């Protein structure tokens, strides 16, 4: 079930390039944590380091600690594949598997666990996940149709259904609404509100109103200058961040004076 994440002194490198420096934070369980900041400040990189997805890029590595439920994700004995099965991810662009039906898309993660599922069991998972992603009523009559036939917003909710089908502890979302129209965006935001009772949710967004609407805590990332590593400027409850931030540059960013 939902777990908290403790990050201490995390440095993230791409080869020799230090991309994110010295992050410390505690992400609460069953809450929504949002990361905001200008482009290139490392918030997506940091998000991807939370389920070791940044390692997909050759040369990427970290120093420091990420601890989920007492288990350090970067211990030598920990398999990144196992980490990703516990910590789900939703991407910027909806990415359902193009060759799979809606039904198979939802079950894609479960099938990886390679245990044989009974048909009824699989049906249950599909219905539960699609209901969880607020998509069931729209697709229940065409589960065998390809996932690519859905609208962008529906595809993104399908991706969320796929991520929650494996019952992860944590759900990471990397700008999940940036490719969607306002109506689909609001559907996803409603969904985030509902999901937080079961999952720890971490979301990166460029949209400050969105961060204010959906999150309980907010982290502001910034760069000291071009070519400098990104760092966490401020991490506080969202309410405080948007009314009375501790840091001057946070206020400047939020009020739109730069970035």
């Amino acid at each position, binding site marked *: 079930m939902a777990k908290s994440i403790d990050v201490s002194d995390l440095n993230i490198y791409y080869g020799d390039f230090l991309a994110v420096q010295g992050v410390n934070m505690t992400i609460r369980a069953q809450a929504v944590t949002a990361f905001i900041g200008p482009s290139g400040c490392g918030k997506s990189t940091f998000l991807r380091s939370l389920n070791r997805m940044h390692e*997909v890029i*050759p040369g990427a590595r970290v120093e420091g600690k990420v601890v989920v439920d007492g288990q350090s994700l970067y211990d030598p004995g920990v398999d990144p594949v196992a980490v990703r099965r516990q910590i789900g991810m939703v991407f910027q662009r909806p990415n359902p598997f193009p060759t799979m039906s809606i039904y198979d898309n939802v079950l894609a993660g479960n099938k990886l666990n390679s245990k044989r599922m009974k048909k009824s069991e699989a049906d249950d998972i599909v219905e539960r996940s699609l209901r969880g992603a607020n998509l069931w009523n729209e697709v229940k009559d065409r589960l065998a149709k390809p996932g690519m036939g859905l609208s962008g917003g529906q595809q993104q909710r399908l991706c969320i259904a796929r991520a929650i089908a494996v019952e992860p502890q944590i759900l990471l979302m990397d700008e999940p609404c940036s490719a969607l129209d306002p109506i689909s965006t609001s559907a996803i935001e409603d969904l985030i509100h509902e999901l937080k009772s079961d999952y720890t949710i971490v979301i990166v967004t460029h949209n400050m109103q969105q961060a204010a609407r959906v999150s309980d805590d907010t982290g502001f990332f910034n760069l000291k200058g071009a070519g400098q590593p990104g760092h966490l400027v401020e991490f506080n409850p969202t309410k405080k961040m948007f009314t009375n931030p501790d840091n001057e540059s946070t206020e400047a960013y939020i009020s739109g004076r730069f970035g």
Partner: protein
Amino acid sequence: MSTTPTRTPTRTASAQPSRRGDAVFAGLARGAGLLIVLALAGVAIFLIVEGAPALGANEEQLYGKESLTLYVWPLLYGTLLAALLAILIAAPLAIGLALVISHYAPRRIARTLGYLVDLLAAVPSVVFGLWGIQVLAPTLFPAYQWLADHLGFLPFFEGPATTGRTIFTAAVVLAVMALPIITAICREVFLQTPRTHEEAALALGATRWEMVRMTVFPYARSGIISGIMLGLGRALGETMAVAMVLSVSGAVTVNLISSQNPSTIAANIALNFGNASGTKVNVLIFSGLVLFVVSFIVNFLGRWVAARGQVKG
């Protein structure tokens, strides 16, 4: 391919941009397209006109065979058998190799490996033929003897194994020759798999192999088939290597390791054309027509399958 130097039209507020470059290029492109059609039609007409007299050929002109069908069939059989065997060997190897280059090997090793495979395509087929006779045939011969002794009950390995210059050896040579083209095409389509699909699979906790199975193979399916078909085309038409390697008797058999092998159409033409005259020439050209039609069908089927498996997105 021809390129025309097209002048960038000078843009002034009043003057219309010149369309001459467009017209020239359109004409050239149309001409090139037409030339291809004409060349193909020319070949087809030549084969039909020159091959037709073979229908009236007598036994002597048919190299001792009673009818044209009996003459062409063993050759066609040999061609198909050698090419299919070659593809059975080459395709899995090429797909694996392409996957290593595109997804598994570190970048520097992958690049070197890619160059080496491309280099394989640059080796002349005569050299492959020499290698087949001098190296491969003697190397495989003990294996054939073992197969004949231990698996002789299978029709493929009936033997007797008296030479290394069998249809299996020829198929291995053809496989090596078809390998680069299949690998190159597979590598390119594997690399084009959208990153977002791959990340979707990895984020679900897929291992690298599971990721490949979920995203790369479905995406690349039609490309893989095209590559295999092109490789098959190369194997069907290959002449020199087969002519040099294969010990021929004209037998139609599934026995892969004996000295009694059917020849292939292309190799047979190459070996006999120099001494042929009169209607014998027409007989050989007729067999060429058969090869032309078979290659055409293979290509057509390949394209059809590839188009059917086209994946959007």
